[in-house]
């Protein structure tokens, strides 16, 4: 250990991708693994803990059992949650997210949040967490994000290691952004849903997923082929998404509804709303904040596509009683056909009264 490689925080940078020897091995098979202190650590305004668990099992409507992994919040009575529990913070807060990895190595990448390299959760340019690490960041753009493990990512993300992340403005939930102007456009909402859309290929969950490092050192485990048979929103199988209250929403006339849509699948999502919606934000950046963009109005039944990891936020006002249907189709990344011979569709609704 050379003195000039160890920072005042006590981190030996040569044991990370920051100043370590980056070669073909550290890039993929033998990635840097450490449990360093957080550089430039501040006193947090809000803190979270995420404990890795790998014992999840979902029972599909057809009786099939699907293994999955998750980030658990030790303070939350819900064990092996799927998707992992929401992280909700406010613009300008110093956020700490402490990862406890259990027996294997993992990371957390706060997707769309743009912190320093050490806090970005990508092993080959920084490190994978051996035992524990506290990620630090301070969000500057209120919007919709998510977090996921970035080790052997094709597998760990597919196995369920992800959850929603919402940044509210300082005013808190109910507001999309701060404004000195009263009744600023597209600023308030009364009804909110985050739709985390996922697809599962049982081969990945029950066969490849038996090995946490599957494929990592060169074995062909067939992770270039993904043919999902199960389609979920917020952990609810598509057989039940139409009415399950984890997904479907109710609104009163006059209320403004905000739908935060996240594609956590490996399909192209094609979503259609049976009402006119306004896209107010994409990938956590508000449309209309700067001079070069503006909110987009999509007339009812316009197909809107988003690829894996993209987020779009939609706003509409409930104006008359009735049911507003929403259809989400999961399309194959090469053929663009609806997955699983046309069965890859999840429908839900917003009931206005």
């Amino acid at each position: 250990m050379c003195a000039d490689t160890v920072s005042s925080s006590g981190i030996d940078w040569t044991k990370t991708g920051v100043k370590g020897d980056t070669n073909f091995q550290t890039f993929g098979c033998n990635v840097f693994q450490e449990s360093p202190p957080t550089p430039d650590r501040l006193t947090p305004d809000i803190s979270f803990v995420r404990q890795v668990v790998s014992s999840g099992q979902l029972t599909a409507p057809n009786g099939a059992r699907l293994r999955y992994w998750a980030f658990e919040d030790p303070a939350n009575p819900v064990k092996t949650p799927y998707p992992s529990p929401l992280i909700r913070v406010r613009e300008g807060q110093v956020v700490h997210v402490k990862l406890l990895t259990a027996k294997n190595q993992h990371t957390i990448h706060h997707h769309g949040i743009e912190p320093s390299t050490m806090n970005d959760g990508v092993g080959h340019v920084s490190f994978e967490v051996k035992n524990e690490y506290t990620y630090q960041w301070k969000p500057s753009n209120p919007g919709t994000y998510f977090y996921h493990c970035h080790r052997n990512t094709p597998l760990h993300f597919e196995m369920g290691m992800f959850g929603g992340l919402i940044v509210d403005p300082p005013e808190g939930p109910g507001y999309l952004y701060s404004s000195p102007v009263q009744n600023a456009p597209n600023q308030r909402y009364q009804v909110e849903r985050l739709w985390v859309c996922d697809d599962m290929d049982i081969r990945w969950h029950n066969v490849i997923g038996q090995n946490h490092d599957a494929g990592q050192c060169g074995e062909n485990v067939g992770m270039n082929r993904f043919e999902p048979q199960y389609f979920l929103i917020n952990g609810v199988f598509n057989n039940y998404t139409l009415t399950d209250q984890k997904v479907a929403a109710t609104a009163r006339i006059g209320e403004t509804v905000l739908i935060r849509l996240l594609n956590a699948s490996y399909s192209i999502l094609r979503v259609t709303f049976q009402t006119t919606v306004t896209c107010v934000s994409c990938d956590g950046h508000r449309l209309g904040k700067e001079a070069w963009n503006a909110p987009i109005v999509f007339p009812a039944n316009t197909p809107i596509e988003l690829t894996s990891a993209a987020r779009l936020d939609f706003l509409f006002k409930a104006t008359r009683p009735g049911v507003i249907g929403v259809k989400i189709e999961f399309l194959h990344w090469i053929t663009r056909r609806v997955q699983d011979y046309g069965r890859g569709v999840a429908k839900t609704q917003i009931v206005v009264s």
Partner: protein
Amino acid sequence: MDRRDFIKIGAGATTVTLAAAAQQFITPQATPLAVVTPPPSPMSLSTLSTTVAERQLVIEPVEKEMIDGKMVYMVFYFLTTGQAQPPLRYREGDLVSISITNNDIVPHGFAITGIPQATIAAIPPGETRLVPSFAAPVGGSYLYHDPYDAPLNRILGLHGAFIVDPALGTTVAGSPTPFSRAMHTPQIAAVFDAFGRHPRFPGDSWKPQDPARDKLWLFSQTDSTINARAAAGVRISGQALIDAFLPDYFHINGLSGFDTAVHTSTASADLAAAEAIEPVGRQGQPTLLRVMNAGLCTHSAHIHGNHLFECTEPDASGVPYCETNVYERDVWIMRPMDRKDMLLPFERPPDIPVWPPKQEPFPLRYVMHCHTEMSQTAGGGNYPQGLVTHWKMTSPIYTF
């Protein structure tokens, strides 16, 4: 050959030796045409002259080494200098003159999306054809490819970037852009005018003459089984190919994973190509990324560290246009044959609490990868040896 053994053997040698050894793995099976006039360096800006020396492209089948060491049959357009899949660069209004020689044993062709007159439907084996002469159109990014037996030959490797610099690219306020002024929208002008003026973007305007500020990311995918069958004379194309396509290698400018960026000790298989991919600069040096997808997958490109500005895309006829709503994205969709010019602002990563960092050293490094994660594999595993690279911020603009 096992790729990891190859690297281990090469590690003791000089990087020059390693690069030379790696070059052997892109070797035309026949001797290319004799070099007549070396064409200008393809990524350098062309001169103001309106006539440009004829460029000669040669179609050759090759055996190319994948990132895991597997040798795969591919077919490339080569410059007579030996460069495969060369970017072709012109200035708007230049008279473009290109000849294509087909050294393969099956027919091939040539086309540029968005420039329909620049088409050769078929070149018989062993023959040379001239691309009908045309004037380089409005400034932007185009894709040339082989339309014969589509999309098979394109997938086998017959594609490359065709880049046009604008005759007049500045905004009315004088900011340089890579797009002809006639194409500009108020929103595109607002983005390019923001650099060096907007409080978010202290630093430089975009620098059109600096290759470090102008990058090509040409995505492609290879299905080694389809390629092997094509080499054996079993050729499928059209919808049958799309239905059968199961890619096992994923590339940026023909490189994958480790090879797409510059590393401390072990060199990429093609260091110059890696340097051409990896954006490097300090805060306040906005960089253009000409992103194209020559393959059959829809990619979900995702970048860490900064959101990107989505500046252009092609219309239904393939002609690029400037957006009237410039989204700031960390994920952008790249369908087959999409071309999107994205601007990486090199702004302060907005969610770092202490700026500049006191304990964490520069450079800050951030990955770009496709989030449809099957693309992060090579040969069915090997994460992250697929469509991934990273960019590097070397310093803040000011230190305190």
